[in-house]
Protein backbone atom coordinates (compact mmCIF):
# COMPACT_ATOMS: atom_id res chain seq x y z
CA UNK A 1 0.00 0.00 0.00
CA UNK A 2 1.05 3.59 -0.45
CA UNK A 3 -0.03 6.92 -1.87
CA UNK A 4 -1.37 7.43 -5.38
CA UNK A 5 -0.91 10.93 -6.75
CA UNK A 6 -3.63 11.14 -9.38
CA UNK A 7 -4.27 13.46 -12.29
CA UNK A 8 -6.65 16.26 -11.32
CA UNK A 9 -9.36 15.18 -13.76
CA UNK A 10 -9.69 11.73 -12.21
CA UNK A 11 -11.45 13.38 -9.26
CA UNK A 12 -12.86 16.28 -11.24
CA UNK A 13 -13.93 15.75 -14.83
CA UNK A 14 -15.05 19.38 -14.93
CA UNK A 15 -11.41 20.25 -15.60
CA UNK A 16 -11.38 18.40 -18.92
CA UNK A 17 -11.15 20.17 -22.23
CA UNK A 18 -14.62 20.68 -23.75
CA UNK A 19 -16.23 17.44 -24.93
CA UNK A 20 -13.71 15.53 -22.88
CA UNK A 21 -15.62 14.83 -19.65
CA UNK A 22 -16.41 11.11 -19.47
CA UNK A 23 -18.60 11.45 -16.38
CA UNK A 24 -20.10 14.12 -14.12
CA UNK A 25 -17.32 14.45 -11.58
CA UNK A 26 -15.27 11.61 -10.11
CA UNK A 27 -13.93 8.96 -12.51
CA UNK A 28 -14.75 5.99 -10.31
CA UNK A 29 -13.08 3.07 -12.16
CA UNK A 30 -9.64 4.32 -11.12
CA UNK A 31 -10.59 5.64 -7.70
CA UNK A 32 -12.41 2.43 -6.76
CA UNK A 33 -9.32 0.32 -7.47
CA UNK A 34 -7.08 2.60 -5.40
CA UNK A 35 -9.44 2.51 -2.45
CA UNK A 36 -10.09 -1.21 -2.68
CA UNK A 37 -6.34 -1.74 -2.48
CA UNK A 38 -6.07 0.57 0.52
CA UNK A 39 -4.09 3.33 -1.17
CA UNK A 40 -4.31 6.97 -0.15
CA UNK A 41 -5.51 9.24 -2.94
CA UNK A 42 -3.91 12.64 -3.48
CA UNK A 43 -4.92 14.88 -6.35
CA UNK A 44 -2.41 16.77 -8.45
CA UNK A 45 -3.23 20.12 -10.09
CA UNK A 46 -4.29 20.17 -13.75
CA UNK A 47 -1.39 21.75 -15.66
CA UNK A 48 -3.54 22.88 -18.57
CA UNK A 49 -6.44 24.34 -16.60
CA UNK A 50 -4.74 27.28 -14.92
CA UNK A 51 -2.48 27.93 -17.91
CA UNK A 52 -4.70 27.72 -20.96
CA UNK A 53 -8.08 27.87 -19.19
CA UNK A 54 -11.33 25.99 -19.46
CA UNK A 55 -11.95 27.15 -23.02
CA UNK A 56 -8.69 25.72 -24.27
CA UNK A 57 -8.58 23.75 -27.49
CA UNK A 58 -7.67 20.13 -27.76
CA UNK A 59 -3.91 20.15 -28.21
CA UNK A 60 -0.89 17.96 -28.80
CA UNK A 61 2.39 18.01 -26.93
CA UNK A 62 4.19 20.29 -29.36
CA UNK A 63 1.62 23.05 -28.86
CA UNK A 64 2.31 23.11 -25.12
CA UNK A 65 6.05 22.64 -25.39
CA UNK A 66 7.02 26.27 -24.73
CA UNK A 67 9.30 27.85 -22.18
CA UNK A 68 6.32 29.48 -20.47
CA UNK A 69 4.35 26.24 -20.11
CA UNK A 70 7.40 24.34 -18.90
CA UNK A 71 8.03 27.06 -16.30
CA UNK A 72 4.40 26.71 -15.18
CA UNK A 73 4.78 22.92 -14.99
CA UNK A 74 8.02 23.25 -13.03
CA UNK A 75 6.21 25.40 -10.47
CA UNK A 76 3.43 22.82 -10.17
CA UNK A 77 5.94 19.98 -10.04
CA UNK A 78 7.81 21.65 -7.18
CA UNK A 79 4.56 21.93 -5.20
CA UNK A 80 3.56 18.31 -5.87
CA UNK A 81 7.07 16.99 -5.27
CA UNK A 82 7.01 18.57 -1.80
CA UNK A 83 3.97 16.47 -0.95
CA UNK A 84 5.41 13.35 -2.55
CA UNK A 85 8.66 13.81 -0.65
CA UNK A 86 6.77 14.03 2.64
CA UNK A 87 5.06 10.69 1.88
CA UNK A 88 8.25 9.06 0.63
CA UNK A 89 10.03 10.09 3.85
CA UNK A 90 7.37 8.11 5.73
CA UNK A 91 8.31 5.04 3.70
CA UNK A 92 5.19 5.08 1.54
CA UNK A 93 5.19 3.60 -1.96
CA UNK A 94 4.44 6.25 -4.57
CA UNK A 95 2.43 5.76 -7.75
CA UNK A 96 1.60 8.50 -10.24
CA UNK A 97 -1.69 7.93 -12.06
CA UNK A 98 -1.77 10.02 -15.21
CA UNK A 99 -3.89 10.23 -18.35
CA UNK A 100 -2.57 8.34 -21.34
CA UNK A 101 -2.59 10.32 -24.55
CA UNK A 102 -2.53 13.66 -22.74
CA UNK A 103 -0.01 16.28 -23.88
CA UNK A 104 0.70 17.13 -20.25
CA UNK A 105 -0.41 14.17 -18.10
CA UNK A 106 0.55 11.14 -20.23
CA UNK A 107 2.73 8.70 -18.32
CA UNK A 108 3.70 6.29 -21.10
CA UNK A 109 1.71 7.63 -24.04
CA UNK A 110 1.36 11.27 -25.02
CA UNK A 111 0.10 12.99 -28.17
CA UNK A 112 2.25 14.36 -30.94
CA UNK A 113 1.75 16.16 -34.23
CA UNK A 114 4.53 18.57 -35.16
CA UNK A 115 2.41 20.14 -37.91
CA UNK A 116 -0.70 20.89 -35.87
CA UNK A 117 -1.57 24.57 -35.56
CA UNK A 118 -3.76 27.32 -36.90
CA UNK A 119 -7.48 26.73 -37.29
CA UNK A 120 -8.42 24.00 -34.80
CA UNK A 121 -9.98 21.57 -37.25
CA UNK A 122 -8.79 18.04 -37.72
CA UNK A 123 -10.56 14.82 -38.64
CA UNK A 124 -11.72 12.44 -35.94
CA UNK A 125 -9.21 9.69 -35.41
CA UNK A 126 -6.17 11.65 -36.55
CA UNK A 127 -3.21 9.55 -35.41
CA UNK A 128 -1.39 11.48 -32.74
CA UNK A 129 -0.54 9.10 -29.92
CA UNK A 130 3.07 8.25 -29.40
CA UNK A 131 5.17 6.75 -26.64
CA UNK A 132 6.46 9.14 -24.01
CA UNK A 133 5.47 11.36 -21.13
CA UNK A 134 3.39 14.50 -21.18
CA UNK A 135 5.17 17.73 -20.35
CA UNK A 136 4.04 18.06 -16.73
CA UNK A 137 4.85 14.41 -16.02
CA UNK A 138 8.25 14.92 -17.61
CA UNK A 139 8.94 17.90 -15.35
CA UNK A 140 7.66 16.08 -12.26
CA UNK A 141 9.74 13.05 -13.19
CA UNK A 142 12.85 15.26 -13.37
CA UNK A 143 12.05 16.90 -10.03
CA UNK A 144 11.51 13.54 -8.29
CA UNK A 145 14.67 12.15 -9.83
CA UNK A 146 16.56 15.19 -8.56
CA UNK A 147 15.22 14.44 -5.08
CA UNK A 148 16.03 10.73 -5.38
CA UNK A 149 12.41 9.62 -5.05
CA UNK A 150 11.36 6.38 -6.75
CA UNK A 151 7.87 5.96 -8.15
CA UNK A 152 5.78 3.81 -10.46
CA UNK A 153 3.24 4.98 -13.02
CA UNK A 154 -0.20 4.00 -14.25
CA UNK A 155 -2.62 5.75 -16.56
CA UNK A 156 -6.28 6.27 -17.31
CA UNK A 157 -6.75 5.22 -20.95
CA UNK A 158 -10.02 6.73 -22.20
CA UNK A 159 -8.33 8.63 -25.01
CA UNK A 160 -6.77 5.54 -26.53
CA UNK A 161 -8.48 3.57 -29.29
CA UNK A 162 -7.72 0.41 -27.31
CA UNK A 163 -9.46 1.70 -24.15
CA UNK A 164 -11.16 -0.98 -22.11
CA UNK A 165 -12.17 -0.42 -18.48
CA UNK A 166 -11.32 -3.97 -17.40
CA UNK A 167 -7.84 -3.73 -18.94
CA UNK A 168 -7.30 -0.27 -17.42
CA UNK A 169 -8.27 -1.64 -14.03
CA UNK A 170 -6.05 -4.72 -14.37
CA UNK A 171 -3.03 -2.61 -15.35
CA UNK A 172 -3.54 -0.32 -12.39
CA UNK A 173 -3.89 -3.27 -10.02
CA UNK A 174 -0.71 -4.74 -11.41
CA UNK A 175 1.22 -1.49 -10.88
CA UNK A 176 -0.11 -1.13 -7.34
CA UNK A 177 0.80 -4.74 -6.53
CA UNK A 178 4.29 -4.45 -7.99
CA UNK A 179 5.74 -3.08 -4.77
CA UNK A 180 4.16 -5.70 -2.53
CA UNK A 181 6.84 -8.29 -3.06
Amino acid sequence: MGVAFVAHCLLNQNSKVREGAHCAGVYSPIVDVLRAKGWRVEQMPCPELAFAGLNRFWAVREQYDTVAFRRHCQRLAAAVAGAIAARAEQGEDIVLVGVEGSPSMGVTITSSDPDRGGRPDWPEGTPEHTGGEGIFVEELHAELERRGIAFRVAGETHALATHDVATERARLESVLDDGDG
Partner: protein
Amino acid sequence: MGDERSWRVALVADRYVNPAPGGLDGLAVLAAAGWGVMQLPDDAYRAEVARLLLAEVAEQVEEFSRHGYLFILVGERAGLGEALARVGVAVPPRAVPASAGELSEFLAAQPDPPALAAAEEPTRVRGALPGRRWFPDR
Protein backbone atom coordinates in the same frame (compact mmCIF):
# COMPACT_ATOMS: atom_id res chain seq x y z
CA MET B 1 -18.89 13.37 -28.65
CA GLY B 2 -20.83 14.13 -25.47
CA ASP B 3 -19.56 15.90 -22.42
CA GLU B 4 -20.90 14.77 -19.06
CA ARG B 5 -19.45 17.41 -16.75
CA SER B 6 -21.70 18.50 -13.91
CA TRP B 7 -20.48 22.12 -13.54
CA ARG B 8 -20.41 21.40 -9.80
CA VAL B 9 -17.15 21.32 -7.88
CA ALA B 10 -16.56 20.65 -4.19
CA LEU B 11 -13.42 21.76 -2.38
CA VAL B 12 -12.95 18.86 -0.03
CA ALA B 13 -10.82 18.44 3.08
CA ASP B 14 -8.45 15.48 2.91
CA ARG B 15 -10.21 13.63 5.72
CA TYR B 16 -13.29 13.24 3.53
CA VAL B 17 -11.22 11.90 0.61
CA ASN B 18 -9.08 9.58 2.71
CA PRO B 19 -11.32 8.91 5.71
CA ALA B 20 -10.01 7.28 8.85
CA PRO B 21 -11.71 3.98 9.75
CA GLY B 22 -15.31 4.81 10.63
CA GLY B 23 -14.98 8.32 9.15
CA LEU B 24 -17.32 9.77 6.58
CA ASP B 25 -16.43 8.79 3.01
CA GLY B 26 -17.26 12.14 1.46
CA LEU B 27 -15.67 11.23 -1.85
CA ALA B 28 -18.15 8.38 -2.34
CA VAL B 29 -21.11 10.64 -1.58
CA LEU B 30 -19.86 13.37 -3.90
CA ALA B 31 -19.11 10.87 -6.67
CA ALA B 32 -22.59 9.37 -6.44
CA ALA B 33 -24.13 12.85 -6.58
CA GLY B 34 -22.09 13.83 -9.64
CA TRP B 35 -19.86 16.46 -8.06
CA GLY B 36 -16.28 17.02 -9.10
CA VAL B 37 -13.76 17.11 -6.27
CA MET B 38 -10.83 19.43 -5.64
CA GLN B 39 -8.93 17.90 -2.76
CA LEU B 40 -7.37 20.18 -0.16
CA PRO B 41 -3.92 19.39 1.24
CA ASP B 42 -3.69 17.03 4.18
CA ASP B 43 -3.35 18.87 7.50
CA ALA B 44 -0.23 16.80 8.16
CA TYR B 45 1.76 18.64 5.50
CA ARG B 46 4.30 21.25 6.53
CA ALA B 47 3.01 24.81 6.14
CA GLU B 48 5.20 25.56 3.12
CA VAL B 49 4.10 22.42 1.25
CA ALA B 50 0.46 23.21 1.97
CA ARG B 51 0.86 26.87 0.98
CA LEU B 52 2.17 25.96 -2.48
CA LEU B 53 -0.60 23.42 -3.05
CA LEU B 54 -3.30 25.81 -1.86
CA ALA B 55 -2.02 28.50 -4.22
CA GLU B 56 -2.51 26.11 -7.15
CA VAL B 57 -5.97 25.13 -5.91
CA ALA B 58 -6.93 28.80 -5.69
CA GLU B 59 -5.79 29.60 -9.24
CA GLN B 60 -7.88 26.76 -10.58
CA VAL B 61 -10.91 27.79 -8.53
CA GLU B 62 -10.61 31.27 -10.00
CA GLU B 63 -10.69 29.86 -13.53
CA PHE B 64 -13.73 27.70 -12.77
CA SER B 65 -15.52 30.57 -11.07
CA ARG B 66 -15.14 32.86 -14.07
CA HIS B 67 -16.89 30.26 -16.19
CA GLY B 68 -19.99 29.80 -14.04
CA TYR B 69 -19.15 26.60 -12.16
CA LEU B 70 -20.82 26.11 -8.77
CA PHE B 71 -18.53 25.70 -5.77
CA ILE B 72 -18.97 24.42 -2.24
CA LEU B 73 -16.55 23.64 0.58
CA VAL B 74 -16.74 20.35 2.49
CA GLY B 75 -14.74 20.52 5.69
CA GLU B 76 -12.08 23.12 6.30
CA ARG B 77 -8.43 23.80 5.59
CA ALA B 78 -6.26 26.45 7.27
CA GLY B 79 -4.92 28.89 4.71
CA LEU B 80 -7.64 28.26 2.11
CA GLY B 81 -9.40 31.58 2.70
CA GLU B 82 -6.16 33.52 2.29
CA ALA B 83 -5.23 31.61 -0.88
CA LEU B 84 -8.65 32.27 -2.42
CA ALA B 85 -8.53 35.94 -1.39
CA ARG B 86 -5.25 36.32 -3.27
CA VAL B 87 -7.04 35.46 -6.52
CA GLY B 88 -10.15 37.48 -5.61
CA VAL B 89 -12.48 34.57 -4.85
CA ALA B 90 -14.66 34.26 -1.73
CA VAL B 91 -14.83 31.09 0.33
CA PRO B 92 -17.86 29.14 -1.00
CA PRO B 93 -20.78 27.86 1.11
CA ARG B 94 -19.47 25.34 3.59
CA ALA B 95 -20.56 22.26 5.50
CA VAL B 96 -18.73 20.04 7.94
CA PRO B 97 -20.91 16.94 7.69
CA ALA B 98 -20.76 14.13 10.21
CA SER B 99 -22.74 11.67 8.12
CA ALA B 100 -23.47 10.77 4.52
CA GLY B 101 -27.04 11.96 5.05
CA GLU B 102 -25.89 15.40 6.17
CA LEU B 103 -23.61 15.75 3.19
CA SER B 104 -26.32 14.60 0.78
CA GLU B 105 -28.74 17.15 2.25
CA PHE B 106 -26.16 19.91 1.84
CA LEU B 107 -25.58 18.93 -1.79
CA ALA B 108 -29.30 18.76 -2.53
CA ALA B 109 -29.78 22.26 -1.13
CA GLN B 110 -27.38 23.87 -3.60
CA PRO B 111 -28.67 25.99 -6.50
CA ASP B 112 -28.02 25.25 -10.15
CA PRO B 113 -24.53 26.17 -11.35
CA PRO B 114 -24.52 29.77 -12.69
CA ALA B 115 -23.47 28.58 -16.14
CA LEU B 116 -26.45 26.25 -16.43
CA ALA B 117 -28.87 28.79 -15.00
CA ALA B 118 -27.60 31.35 -17.52
CA ALA B 119 -28.03 28.90 -20.37
CA GLU B 120 -31.74 28.74 -19.54
CA GLU B 121 -32.15 32.51 -19.90
CA PRO B 122 -32.95 33.07 -23.58
CA THR B 123 -32.26 36.81 -23.51
CA ARG B 124 -28.95 36.67 -21.73
CA VAL B 125 -25.97 37.76 -23.74
CA ARG B 126 -22.61 36.30 -22.90
CA GLY B 127 -20.55 38.84 -21.03
CA ALA B 128 -23.48 40.83 -19.69
CA LEU B 129 -23.10 41.91 -16.09
CA PRO B 130 -24.85 39.78 -13.48
CA GLY B 131 -28.21 41.18 -12.50
CA ARG B 132 -28.37 43.47 -15.49
CA ARG B 133 -30.43 42.63 -18.54
CA TRP B 134 -29.04 43.53 -21.89
CA PHE B 135 -31.11 42.93 -25.00
CA PRO B 136 -29.12 42.70 -28.19
CA ASP B 137 -29.99 44.83 -31.19
CA ARG B 138 -32.40 43.13 -33.54
